[in-house]
């Protein structure tokens, strides 16, 4: 079986399988969920098709013109539910080919062909899925699916398409499509006789203990090849272990009443014990608050200790609370202490550098089950996450099958709404400010963007994937081979996604206790974008852009995607209102990022790249020379605005961009300038778009590249909209400049009025030389000379005036000009010009006195 057909069988509706697989457990609890899922699915399908169709029609309008839409096509759109994934793959190939127009159109028309020729199969499959949508299982409608697949494979050009799909996800481990993946190789702790794996989130250390040693790996930045540092430790049980924030000491919880502190340099050991019997230690953590250094959480409350360099603990404060369990993350500096019968009464403290803040006590929401039993909240059901600098607490309510979210403010805890969950086991990660909810039983991830008020997922649930080496070649074959070799050597074949031994660490790590490996969760922005684009209705391009503009991690990729979307919606000739919204989003985001200081011009990047940035890997530095040369090339080629350049820019190391914001200049270069040639026949539409762009820019009080104006003039003149051109100029929508004036003169060859606008602009800008030259060119040599005389302009060639006057056969004028010039230009009477024309004058008519 070829790798791609394998991917087909793999992509069969994983999330429906999973979500519906849980239905029995959901009975009577969440009625809305299956409906919602299917509805979302339907929506995404039809939109995907529309999306594809748009591409198809745009690149190959004749396709449907001669054959008219294939029969059953509309039903196909309406009924098909699970063709979704197949088409996701197609869509993928679009994006892959996005840089190459020809390829793109070829792909699109291929899709059109498939849809046209395989409409029956598609319809069959669609109706089959539609009829069985409530009893979804793995390999649903397999027969119909295979028929469709078979038909598609026999369509011409398809093999090329399939190749493209496969190469787009080079080195995909499992061969399926997803937006979240874990990257091979993981960080391995191949320590023999290891007794336990711990994660110290304050120092971002993965800690492996043996009977007498502690191995610790730095996990940030994530580097699988990092070697551990080793510390010796006295023997004994280790319940938990954390390095002090300055890493000078190691604290180990030995039992429920003893914590030992080790000094790493002096090897000093200090023991702290609590009253045995009456209370027990639940855990501890180091703090950087000014008040205390170490906090120990006990069943009776929390003790805060100051710790000196000799590791002497001094009790500073005790917070008396009955504690059943607690959670703490260093990222949020927040400790939540759970108490009560159901453990849902939460007391929270934030131990930040600003001091210790006590949060108001609050109750978690727990739905009542039908039986009289009261569910008990466990610490594993509560997650603290930080997105967009906001602190949220997420709490699983298994009865209601909801994930409740609470946002923490200094003086309040506000419940924010709930997300549906499709698995009784659940965990969360945060990547690039996106919330990844792992539905563990279902083995899928759903992405949410808590920034928007809507609680709709960013994309459909898809499985977590495992991917091979980053940057392996574009050839899928090579990638597969590589995978195989790595699999055999590292026994990755054993990886079972979401196995029980997985621990999810804050914010984006997964610790596999069985295999003793640490994974980092990655987001495939491109894939998420595609899925988004597919599921987004056309007007939702705006929210898609907003979403992308909020991305920080792969800012460059987000930026390229944004540029691509902006360009696409223009090329697709979307209604101007939609394009306007999209442009508004980009301009506002840029304006915001400039104010926030996160935006960096491309030009500045060269300098930042040259000076090794803090934490820059040697790899990055090695890239620097080649990098700057690419940059130069980009700069040099920019006026042409070709897409190739855009993808040159793409190759910049992502660490260089901290914000996906797009400056107006870039918008011009990569969007407007690049579509101008393609849309010259639709210049009216383009002008409308540019007007909106200028309006948006002006509203944000930003500056815009002069070339935008020059282009606008060109477009208006091309479509002979001279009335508007003069309005644009007189109302200063097109701001005056020399370039603009010259373009007006140029475009004014067809229209004298426009030419005059250019002349007026030159005069108003006091560009005397150009003004005079243009006046003479238009035959107004007397006016020109008068102007030159008034403004003492001597740079214009005197022969221009003389020749113009001579050509007009007006000797009086010629004489006058000679006289004026000899006054204006010192030493003019000595020039050969003077003699030439003086001679001409005296030859032809002596009556004119000089």
């Amino acid at each position, binding site marked *: 079986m070829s790798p791609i057909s394998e991917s087909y069988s793999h992509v069969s509706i994983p999330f429906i399988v999973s979500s519906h697989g849980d239905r029995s457990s959901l009975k009577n609890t969440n009625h809305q969920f299956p409906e919602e899922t299917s509805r979302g699915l339907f929506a995404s399908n039809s939109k995907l098709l529309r999306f594809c169709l748009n591409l198809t029609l745009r690149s190959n309008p004749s396709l449907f013109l001669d054959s008219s839409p294939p029969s059953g096509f509309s039903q196909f759109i309406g009924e098909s539910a699970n063709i979704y994934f197949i088409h996701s793959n197609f869509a993928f190939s679009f994006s892959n080919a996005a840089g190459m127009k020809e390829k793109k159109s070829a792909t699109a028309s291929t899709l059109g062909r498939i849809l046209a020729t395989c409409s029956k199969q598609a319809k069959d499959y669609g109706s089959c899925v539609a009829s069985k949508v409530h009893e979804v299982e793995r390999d649903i409608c397999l027969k119909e699916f295979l028929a469709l697949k078979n038909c598609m494979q026999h369509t011409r050009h398809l093999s090329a398409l399939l190749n493209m799909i496969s190469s787009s996800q080079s080195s995909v481990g499992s061969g399926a499509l997803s937006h979240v993946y874990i990257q091979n190789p993981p960080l391995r702790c191949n320590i023999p006789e290891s007794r336990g794996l711990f994660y110290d989130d304050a120092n971002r250390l993965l800690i492996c203990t043996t009977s007498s040693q502690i191995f610790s790996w730095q996990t940030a930045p994530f580097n699988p090849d990092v070697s551990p540092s080793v510390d010796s430790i006295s023997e004994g049980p280790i319940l938990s272990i954390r390095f002090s924030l300055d890493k000078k000491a190691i604290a180990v919880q030995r039992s429920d009443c003893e914590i030992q502190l080790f000094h790493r340099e002096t090897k000093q050991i200090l023991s702290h014990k609590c009253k045995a019997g009456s209370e027990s230690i639940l855990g501890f953590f180091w703090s950087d608050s000014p008040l205390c250094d170490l906090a120990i959480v006990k069943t009776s409350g929390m003790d805060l200790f100051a710790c000196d360099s000799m590791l002497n603990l001094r009790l500073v404060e005790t917070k008396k609370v009955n504690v059943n369990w607690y959670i703490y993350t260093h990222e949020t500096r927040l400790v939540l202490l759970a108490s009560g019968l159901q453990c849902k009464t939460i007391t929270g403290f934030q131990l930040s550098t600003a001091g210790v803040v006590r949060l108001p006590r609050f109750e978690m929401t727990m739905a009542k089950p039908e039986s009289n039993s009261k569910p008990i909240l466990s610490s594993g059901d509560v997650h603290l996450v930080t997105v967009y600098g906001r602190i949220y607490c997420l709490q699983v309510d298994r009865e209601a099958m909801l994930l409740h979210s609470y946002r923490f403010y200094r003086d309040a805890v506000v419940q924010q709404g709930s997300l549906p969950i499709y698995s009784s086991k659940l965990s969360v990660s945060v990547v690039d400010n996106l919330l990844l909810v792992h539905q563990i039983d279902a083995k899928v991830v759903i992405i949410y963007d808590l920034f928007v008020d809507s609680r709709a997922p960013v994309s459909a649930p898809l499985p977590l994937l495992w991917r091979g080496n980053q940057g392996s070649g574009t050839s899928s074959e090579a990638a597969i081979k590589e995978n195989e070799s790595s699999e055999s050597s590292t026994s990755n074949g054993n990886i079972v996604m979401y196995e029980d031994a997985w621990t999810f660490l804050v914010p984006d790590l997964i610790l596999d206790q069985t295999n003793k490996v640490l994974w980092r969760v990655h987001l495939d922005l491109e894939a998420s974008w595609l899925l988004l684009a597919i599921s987004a209705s056309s007007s939702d391009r705006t929210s898609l852009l907003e979403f992308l503009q909020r991305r920080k991690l792969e800012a460059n990729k987000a930026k390229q995607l944004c540029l691509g979307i902006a360009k696409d919606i223009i090329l697709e000739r979307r*209604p*101007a*209102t939609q394009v*306007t919204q999209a442009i508004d989003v980009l301009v506002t985001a840029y304006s915001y990022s400039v104010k926030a200081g996160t935006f960096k011009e491309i030009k500045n990047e060269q300098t930042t790249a040259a000076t090794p940035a803090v934490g820059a890997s040697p790899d990055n530095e090695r890239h620097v020379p080649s990098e700057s040369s690419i940059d130069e090339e980009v700069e040099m080629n920019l006026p042409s605005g070709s897409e190739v350049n855009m993808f040159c820019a793409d190759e910049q190391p992502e660490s260089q961009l901290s914000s996906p914001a797009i400056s107006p200049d870039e918008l011009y270069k990569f969007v407007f300038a690049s579509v101008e040639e393609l849309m010259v026949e639709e210049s*009216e*539409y383009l*002008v*409308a778009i540019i*007007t*909106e762009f*200028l*309006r948006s820019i*002006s*509203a944000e009080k930003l500056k815009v590249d002069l070339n935008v104006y020059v282009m606008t003039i060109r477009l208006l003149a091309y479509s002979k*909209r*001279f*009335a*508007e051109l*003069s*309005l*644009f100029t007189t*109302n*200063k*929508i097109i*701001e005056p400049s020399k370039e603009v004036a010259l373009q007006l003169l140029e475009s004014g060859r067809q229209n*004298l*009025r426009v030419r*005059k606008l250019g002349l*007026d602009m030159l*005069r*108003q800008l006091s560009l005397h030389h150009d003004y005079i030259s243009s006046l003479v060119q238009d035959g*107004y040599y007397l*006016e020109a000379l*008068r102007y030159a*005389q*008034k403004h003492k302009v001597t740079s214009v060639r005197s022969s221009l005036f003389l020749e113009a006057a001579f050509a007009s056969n007006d000797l009086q004028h010629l004489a006058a000009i000679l006289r004026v010039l000899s006054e204006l230009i010192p030493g003019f009477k000595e020039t050969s010009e003077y003699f030439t024309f003086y001679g001409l004058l005296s030859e032809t008519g002596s009556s004119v006195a000089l």
Partner: protein
Amino acid sequence: CYELLEAMGMASMSCGSESLRLCVFDLRRGQNEGQELDKILFFYPPDLTFSTQLSVIGLSEGLITFTRLFSPEAACEVIEAERHSHVFFEAEPDIWMVMIVEKNKEIEAIWRVDALRRMLKEVHSLFVMFHGSIRALLEKEPAGGLIRSHLHPFITDYLNDLSVGKKLQLPSFRETLKERGTVQMLTLARDAALEVQSLVGVLDSCAGTVRCHSLILFHDLLVSTTLSPDDTVDLFTFSVMRLTTNAVSSGTSSWSYLRKGSSLSQISSRSNSGQLLGSSDPLPSGNGNDVGRVIRPLQQDKWSKGKDGFLVTDIWGKDATPRIYLQQTQERVYLLTYQHKSLTLVLLVPSAAIVNGELDISFVKHQVIENASAKILKVEEKLSKGWGGENAYHVSGYRYLLVDNDMEVSRASPPGKVATLAKESLLALSKLRETVDSEKSRTKQEREMEICIRAKNNAWAIARLTRGKELYMALEKASETLLDATDSVQSFSNRYCSGAFSMD
């Protein structure tokens, strides 16, 4: 020749208080003995005998034929007789409009010929905009009944606008700081201009893929246009006459030259039964031919604002949408007018976009309301905020008229301020303009020119022309020397015309 003229028909003119005669005739018609009446396409006043009409037209024809001997391209423009001025305008090849105005002792009856000719031009342009060219109508029905039945109500309705009381008020020297056949623009700040242009973009696409033209007015000033200058002038003229807020809610005072007099006189003129052609008058049918219903686009008080914000009228029939011709493209378009407060949007929908008649029209209307409403509100708000009122373009110390012949745009001191000028200043200015007019017509090429004259009251009347732009102004400060006067013009030019008239 003069004697002949005076002998012919002037007696009958004096019998009425009418001091105006206006005729339209076709030189290609009625060349045979006994068919002379065929020439006459329109004659005002209509109650003159045919023989009088013929004698007036015969004289005009004679003059035209005679002067063509010397100047085939441009035959006579004006004949000044002792008691009358004859103003000629060749509206279309061989179709002439002649206006004869009486010169009486009244000081008010001092005309500038070019202003009168511009009136003829205006009425003809408007006619063509609504009905197509006179020649086309003649070709459609060579007997002439069709064109007569159209011209008569049209020109009469047009003249109706000029009537104050029982008299027709022609553009006299008091209107010397106005230029008929130009557009008055609202000056926009850049951000407002961007909003307007954004609105224009939406209006453009209201009829789907076929692009619509549009004209936007604020009060009686033009804000934006996508039409050629000529079409803009025609449509702007009509809009200010009939469509803008001031025109629809008749009775509101207007400062536009297109509507005469104060609100009082206007109301009185309308309530006056002595209208030239009352709206209730039976429509004339030309020469007994059955030409069907004749549309009278210039009928007064026929427009009102509908519930959806679009203006409605029954001039074109019940629920029928007006259609007009565009000069530049020769296409016929539907005219839709949307009004929001002082903002008037004239949308021109190409016939190509309207396949199913009123159904498609209402679709377009729906589109406008759907897509443009928010922008309309925003634009109106922005413009109102920046609106300086009727006297926005007053420059203290100056009474001026600024004409841009390229864009067919003019701006002038507000009428209220012009009215404060002494009669002598106005007369001097009128005379100055007359001089410039004749100078301009002598040399067709654009040229620079500056004329300053001192009026009897020691005021300066100044004209400056440069490359298609004209500036006229009156400066009444008696003490000023010529140097001061030119300095004033200079600073005006620098300040308000971005230096266009600055010359030494």
